[in-house]
């Protein structure tokens, strides 16, 4: 799987006051390959559930999410987190069955399972 780096194009025809799209932060990702599937683990803590999106478009896997806002803030004594959207795009290989993608969100980690197409699975040959 080759990762696609997307370039944010600035809107050319902005007039008046327009909010600039929040800069997206690419969540750190681990990828595991198994005989029948790939599993992606993305570090996305504190995400709003309803903002979490995983979809395939033009052979690319899109992952998006927005962080929850802090409530009742008067002052930040320390601010290290990136107040941003999460976004990452991966190019999917031909061997992935894009109809059977599943995802779950747990402990701030988004886990995505990508099944391989049945005929692409590696057949293990036992040596006798």
């Amino acid at each position, binding site marked *: *799987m080759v990762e696609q780096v997307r370039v944010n194009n600035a809107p050319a025809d902005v007039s008046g006051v327009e909010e600039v799209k929040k800069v997206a932060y690419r969540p750190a990702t*681990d990828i595991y390959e198994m005989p029948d599937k790939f599993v992606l683990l993305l*570090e*996305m803590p*504190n995400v709003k559930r309803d903002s979490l999106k995983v979809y395939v478009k033009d052979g690319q896997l899109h992952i998006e999410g927005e962080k929850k806002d802090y409530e009742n803030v*008067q002052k930040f*004594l320390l601010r*290290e987190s990136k107040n941003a959207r999460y976004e990452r795009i991966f190019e999917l290989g031909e061997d992935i069955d894009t109809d059977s993608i599943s995802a779950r969100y747990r*402990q*701030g980690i988004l886990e995505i399972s990508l099944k391989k197409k049945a005929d692409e699975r590696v057949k293990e040959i036992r040596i006798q």
Partner: protein
Amino acid sequence: MVERGFPQWGPDFLKEFNEFRQQLNELLNSVFSGDVQLASRAMHPVVDIVENDQNYTYFVEIPGVDKADIKLMVKDGTLYLSGERKEPRFSENCQKIREELPYGKFQRTLPLPQDADLETIKARYEDGILLIVIDKRAETRPKKIDVKIQ
């Protein structure tokens, strides 16, 4: 490495800052001379601290950690956090083809404000965030007085 207090609380801020800068330089020098492994492989939790009238809330980003693997301790006005993120185990014939998440032990030491009422400290873990809430001591909270206009 013990972290220093926040700028607004430390009278020796400049001195502390210079010490910190020196430590940072030493670290950078050791990294670029190849003495140590690249520091980014160690897990270093990101922290936000929010203040309002009633309390202080610490937001610590430690996704993928089991609650049982988090240790939190208060000692001498300082918050000590430590823990471990364990690598998930999949099937035997599993190959890691991309590795960006650091695993293993982590720790952070964070100063507590002087007016924090340590008896009230509460913590919970949700969505990869460890939330620590500490009330301010009652006498230091700003009192709200409504003045009647006659």
